[in-house]
């Protein structure tokens, strides 16, 4: 059958793609979606370990991670709307007053 490390390798690939997306994207919403991709790859790791070791804790943790992602979506999109209202742009390079 499919060994555990195939799932872990797929999770690592997805996480890396998410990190690359956060680094190279300049649109705030696109960066937000890449963060969601990273959360999902970690969820895949947790579910794989949970299933292969017959322990339900991993899947409960996935449940809680999903709740945190929902909270993050609400607050993050609120911040994005506030930035857009102030600057008429979602480019994160335009919101660089705090940058030294």
């Amino acid at each position, binding site marked *: 059958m499919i060994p555990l*490390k195939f*799932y872990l390798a797929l999770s*690592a690939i997805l996480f890396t*793609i998410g990190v690359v997306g956060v680094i190279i*994207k300049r649109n705030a919403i696109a960066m937000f*979606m890449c963060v969601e991709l990273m959360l999902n790859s970690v969820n*895949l790791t947790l579910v*794989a370990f949970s299933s292969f070791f017959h322990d339900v804790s991993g899947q409960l943790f996935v449940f809680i991670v999903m709740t945190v992602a929902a909270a993050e979506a*609400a607050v993050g999109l609120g911040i994005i709307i506030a930035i857009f209202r102030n600057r008429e742009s*979602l480019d994160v390079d335009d919101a660089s007053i705090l940058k030294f």
Partner: protein
Amino acid sequence: MSDYLTIFMFFLLAGLAIGSALALVAQRNPLYSAISLVGVFIALAGLYLTLAAPFIAAVQIIVYAGAIMVLVVFVIMLLNVEEEVRQPLRLRFLVPVAVLLAAVLFAEAAFIFFFVNEPAGGGGNAVTTLNQAGTGLTANIGAGLFTIYLLPFEITSILLLMALVGAITLSRRAAVRPSELVVPGAQVLPMHIVDPARIGDATPVEAHTTAESAALSGLFDRAHERE
């Protein structure tokens, strides 16, 4: 036969997930990125099914592909986001360093993938044994969630409440500004409560502070009478 089907499903779904993730990063229009992300979520839900976790697969579709992505697409549509413009690379001298570090990371990952063996206790299980154990069934998840993990569950509800309040605070406009007539903390009372004889009197009391308005409307003396 079932083995080959499971292997085929894994590689199909893994390819769909990786392809959608690459499309998510490569697209310049955020709306196309959002659609690609929905593809990743659906592929991951299928992978959860191959891992015998039907509850998490259902929640993945409902919460992620349903609720969160609808919220994201709604915000994209609301803000009328323009396409990203490619800008020339700054800090070009860091490119060789990045290639080197990526090669090191890739070598480490490949070493672990090919040379580290799985533990004897849990690894290498067939999906049939996964199904027999019933780890991912909804009843088991509910039993775990409301017994040993009850405190994290309750903390999660507080987190959601905080997110609700935070989202409202961040995205609302400052609708009622403190003006000269309405002082923050002041109450707006009908005049006949202050003085029963002046029922029907709609004259506004202009004052700059709460104490001033109380003195003008005669509330000040009555408050001291009560003490």
